């Protein structure tokens, strides 16, 4: 069972990571192209048409090679995660159906006009199509992120014990939850930063090769402004994301910081290395230091999580023990139950579901009503029934901690990168600064690592849950053979790697050809 869960998770992670290699460039480059074509529309300058067409080629390569990589995730839901797939019910159905309609009609229609329509439609119609393609790709992302946000913060639904499915009772609560809005903004602005850095890097390469000077300089100017402003938005939404996580997934926040014992005025680790032998709930007197070394910023974690320098941030052990005052995202303050209390409530809920089914079979209406009431009252902790021991509640601290700190450190580096490119670009000194041009090129793998690290924090940090507090991975997984999952894992690894190599080869060929 353990190997099946691990393999299924690894396969999903592999697919999601590869999918996310293609998506962010599409999301961001679409808008950069639209800005460039707007320049062409306003000035009529053929230079902007040539520049737009060059970046459009790279957009098309990335779009075509990346298209449908996300479909495999849906295959995996049905085959490897069938209990989960059934349990989420129509919560996923509606957003994904809307996504499908948007993706098909908006992208395919306006994408075609973008590429086939230069000489066939008016300049205005072409520009509108380019903007709508950019908005279309971003709108597709909305619905996927709404579905993901619901797993982090299940809201706007009711569990139906007759079908074992969650049914949507409020589309607004699902689509406009604070987590969904913030996750969308944080994710797409991150994608804009990534695309801007790719544009800067390609342009920097042209300048280093003494080619395409005007295209490179003007592309860098647009990418620096767009990427810099997007990075500000990434930081602001990153802060909101932290406060959301503190209220909804405090275990994830504790893992992000390697925080085992909570405190008021908690410090934020700036640089540190975790102690690999540290365990949750160590015996009194035998507690180990969580870090081999660390440099921390006093009170910053409390500020990040609670908007107050003296706010209490619970650690991993506090969350297991419970008994501290906690304010949830709706502003309700209560004493947090311990793991054992939550597990007891989860077991009550699962047993009530079982008894409800028996009562239904025997036609006992009063018992059905009684068990339904018990189920509803305890459903909040339904998933805790499947968690064997308290330690299983703790996500992989090492991956979550390092991914979070790599993401933040690279984010700070990109601030510096955009500032330098802005200053040197304004002074027209980029061509004379080869070290900065090389730094721009090196930043491409770094921005992809940063983006993937963000997703690792979000997804690894919420383990063991597929749906927060309601369904852990061990209850969500299907009873398929682990060897099947291993086989498809290898097929995917080969297929995706081949796809990536093909994309890079075609893209490098087009970049070398220039505009």
């Amino acid at each position, binding site marked *: 069972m353990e190997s099946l869960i691990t393999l299924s998770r690894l396969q999903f992670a592999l697919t999601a990571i590869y999918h996310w290699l293609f998506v962010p460039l599409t999301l961001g480059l679409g808008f950069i192209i639209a800005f460039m074509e707007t320049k062409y529309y306003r000035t009529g300058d053929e230079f902007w048409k040539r520049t737009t067409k060059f970046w459009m080629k790279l957009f098309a390569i990335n779009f075509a090679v990346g298209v449908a990589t996300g*479909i495999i995730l849906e295959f995996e839901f049905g085959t490897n995660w069938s209990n989960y797939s059934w349990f989420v019910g129509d919560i996923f159905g509606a957003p994904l159906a809307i996504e499908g309609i948007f993706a098909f009609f908006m992208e395919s229609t306006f994408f075609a006009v973008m590429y086939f329509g230069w000489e066939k439609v008016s300049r205005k119609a072409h520009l509108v199509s380019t903007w709508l393609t950019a908005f279309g790709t971003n709108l597709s992302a909305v619905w996927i992120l709404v579905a993901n946000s619901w797993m982090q913060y299940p809201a706007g639904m009711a569990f139906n014990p007759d079908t074992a499915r969650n049914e949507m009772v409020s589309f607004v609560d699902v689509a406009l939850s604070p987590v969904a809005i913030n996750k969308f903004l944080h994710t797409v602005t991150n994608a804009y930063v990534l695309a801007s850095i790719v544009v800067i890097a390609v342009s920097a390469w042209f300048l280093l090769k003494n080619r395409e000077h005007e295209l490179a300089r003007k592309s860098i100017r647009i990418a620096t402004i767009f990427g810099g402003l997007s990075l500000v938005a990434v930081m602001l939404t990153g802060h909101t994301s932290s406060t959301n996580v503190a209220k909804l997934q405090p275990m994830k926040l504790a893992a992000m910081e390697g925080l085992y014992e909570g405190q008021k005025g908690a410090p934020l680790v700036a640089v540190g290395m975790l102690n690999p032998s540290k365990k949750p709930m160590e015996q009194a007197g035998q507690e180990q230091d969580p870090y081999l070394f660390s440099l921390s910023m006093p009170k910053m974690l409390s500020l990040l999580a609670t908007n107050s320098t003296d706010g209490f941030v619970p650690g991993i052990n506090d969350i297991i023990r419970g008994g501290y005052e906690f304010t949830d995202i709706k502003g309700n303050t209560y004493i947090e139950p311990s793991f054992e209390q939550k597990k007891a409530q989860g077991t009550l809920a*699962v047993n009530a579901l079982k008894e409800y089914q028996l009562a239904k079979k025997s036609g006992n209406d009063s018992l059905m009503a009684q068990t339904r009431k018990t189920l509803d009252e305890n459903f909040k902790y339904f998933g805790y029934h499947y968690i064997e021991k308290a330690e299983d509640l703790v996500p992989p601290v090492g991956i979550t901690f390092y991914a979070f700190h790599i993401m933040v450190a690279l984010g700070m580096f990109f601030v510096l990168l955009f500032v330098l490119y802005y200053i040197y670009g304004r002074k027209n000194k980029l061509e004379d600064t080869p070290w900065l041009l090389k730094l721009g090129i090196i930043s491409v793998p770094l921005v992809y690592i940063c983006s993937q690290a963000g997703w690792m924090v979000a997804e690894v940090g919420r383990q063991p849950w597929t749906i927060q507090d309601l369904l852990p991975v061990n209850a969500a997984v299907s009873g398929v053979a682990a060897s099947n999952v291993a086989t498809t894992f290898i097929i995917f690894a080969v297929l995706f790697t081949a796809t990536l190599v093909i994309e890079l080869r075609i893209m490098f060929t087009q970049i070398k050809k220039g505009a």
Partner: protein
Amino acid sequence: METLKRIWLFYYEGFTSMTPMGKTLWVIIIVKLIIMFAVLRLFFFKPALANYNTPEAKSHAVIENLTK
């Protein structure tokens, strides 16, 4: 009818005058979709609940899994 004809010609001319890079990308898309739907979906990714014919049977199977 005239509109439909114009839409058809728009796509027809677009595809027939496509650059070699565009053709390569279409080949990649088609090969990838064939692998995904004709190989992976068909042989490796049968939905685990497909053996249950009705929604009621699927619900029952999941409830059994969740309450065992």
